[in-house]
């Protein structure tokens, strides 16, 4: 009993450390990638003892700056709720990491340990539920500041996130139909099989339309450009106008954490999670008949590495999207969500059902 708790504790620590480190460095990636896209160099001044290493210390410099900034609460704000809001939105995104499968089960000293913190059979629903709850942080932050503009930002955020939640959920119905499970780990196991004997049975090949819908809806969920209505730098001052210092930093961290979670979900649902094509539990089995046997630890390492690689790619991709497109107008966002994505996802569910019943 005690050892089980210890294992869970260690998994939580590992998961959170992975998550927060990646978040921290995603801010660096964002600055550097945007710079490279725009022919600039990007933040490279932070140095420790004359060592600059591509500005890798920049996140720490930013963190120190944020900690020591004045934490200002306007006198007209509701002090308690104003403080609570960033913690709420941070917390609900941070817990979602517990549902993401990082790798296959591993055996240590006769114990089977699943590389997923929360090994329940509703993990997909858990992630979606927690991401929806994160809206509360935004609305609360906008409302508790008692400022008209923040309230507008908060309301816009709520409207946008609720509309895209529908498309997000509906696009996943198709995925759940082809991989009949709500546990992300089981969905990944399903994707280890082969289609026609050579194509990995990844979600992207079975559900291409669902992938596109999920991608757009998930981009909207991260509430960054091109869907940055809650923040809306250019026309409205967003829901965190009245925040400063570390509380503002938590809102910003939440954005980056959402990027990572969305990348994890895209990887897990559509790109085989930790599966490497043709890699079985004992080594590679290529469709053209070659076998290449590998020790168990190397296989697990390859799989965890593959998961990380895929997540990094999607993080990179989302930053690329953020630095490429201008933002939508409010009515365009709503039209796009309600008039295009939701009908498309309904069509996708119907088509999936018909094809599945024909194939049976």
């Amino acid at each position, binding site marked *: 009993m005690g050892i089980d708790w210890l294992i869970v504790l260690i998994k939580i620590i590992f998961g959170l450390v992975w998550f927060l480190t990646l978040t921290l460095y995603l801010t660096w990636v964002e600055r550097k990638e945007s710079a*490279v*896209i725009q*022919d600039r*160099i990007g933040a490279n001044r932070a140095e420790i003892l004359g060592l600059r290493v591509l500005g890798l210390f920049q996140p720490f410099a930013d963190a120190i700056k944020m900690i020591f900034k004045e934490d200002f609460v306007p006198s007209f704000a509701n002090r308690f709720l104003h403080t609570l809001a960033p913690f709420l939105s941070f917390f609900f995104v941070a817990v979602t990491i517990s549902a993401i499968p990082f790798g296959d089960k591993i055996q240590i000293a006769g114990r089977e340990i699943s590389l997923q913190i929360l090994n329940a059979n509703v993990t997909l629903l858990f992630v979606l539920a927690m991401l929806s709850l994160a809206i509360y942080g935004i609305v609360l932050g906008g409302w508790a500041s008692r400022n008209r503009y923040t309230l507008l930002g908060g309301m816009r955020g709520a409207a946008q996130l609720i509309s895209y939640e529908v498309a997000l959920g509906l696009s996943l119905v198709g995925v759940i139909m082809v991989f009949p499970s709500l546990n992300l780990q089981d969905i990944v196991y399903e994707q280890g099989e082969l289609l026609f004997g050579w194509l990995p049975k990844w979600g992207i090949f079975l559900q291409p339309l669902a992938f596109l819908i999920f991608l757009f809806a998930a981009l909207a969920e991260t509430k960054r450009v091109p869907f940055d209505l809650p923040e809306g730098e250019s026309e409205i001052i967003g829901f965190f106008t009245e925040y400063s210092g570390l509380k503002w930093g938590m809102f910003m961290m939440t954005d980056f954490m959402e990027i990572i979670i969305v990348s994890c979900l895209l990887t897990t649902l559509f790109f085989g999670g930790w599966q490497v094509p043709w890699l079985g539990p004992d080594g590679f089995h290529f469709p053209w008949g070659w076998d290449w046997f590998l020790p168990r630890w190397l296989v697990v390492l390859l799989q965890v590495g593959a998961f990380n690689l895929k997540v990094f790619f999607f993080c990179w991709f989302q930053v*690329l999207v953020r630095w*490429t*497109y201008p933002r939508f107008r409010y009515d365009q966002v709503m039209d796009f969500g309600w008039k295009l994505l939701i009908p498309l996802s309904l069509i996708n569910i119907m088509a999936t059902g018909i094809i599945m019943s024909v194939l049976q």
Partner: protein
Amino acid sequence: MMKLLGYFFEIIRGSWITCRHFVVNMWFHTLKVLGIRTKRRGAVTIQYPEEKKEIAPRHRSLHRLMTREDGRPRCVVCMLCMTVCPSECIYIEAAEDSDPEIQKYPKKFIIDLSRCCFCGFCVEACPEDAIRMDTGKIDLATYSRENLIYDLNRLVG
């Protein structure tokens, strides 16, 4: 429907452009890190305090007052610069000069750079070519506003 597909095409084209910039610049950055010299650089950035861009000859930088051969300011306190200055940041006090050809010399000549907009009108207005903005000094920022008030000593410099 065709319009929608057109948008979709443009979306993909847009990310293709940024992606191309990323890959090309990243390629040159990587070559630089590996120590391979290339003609093109990955970025157009000039690392300012260490590297400086050459200032164009007509660039308007910090003012200076010109002097005669004997070292006194050329200014005859005609007040043209003070009048033309849109920011009203020049203050001049005259004193009588012993030389009847000159008549007046500036006892005080103060330019408040915290208000100056570097329009260069004072230079254009001066009939004696007594004031110029060609020092090439552009890093004027200081920690206090008083430091930005330049008097005769600092302007003749």
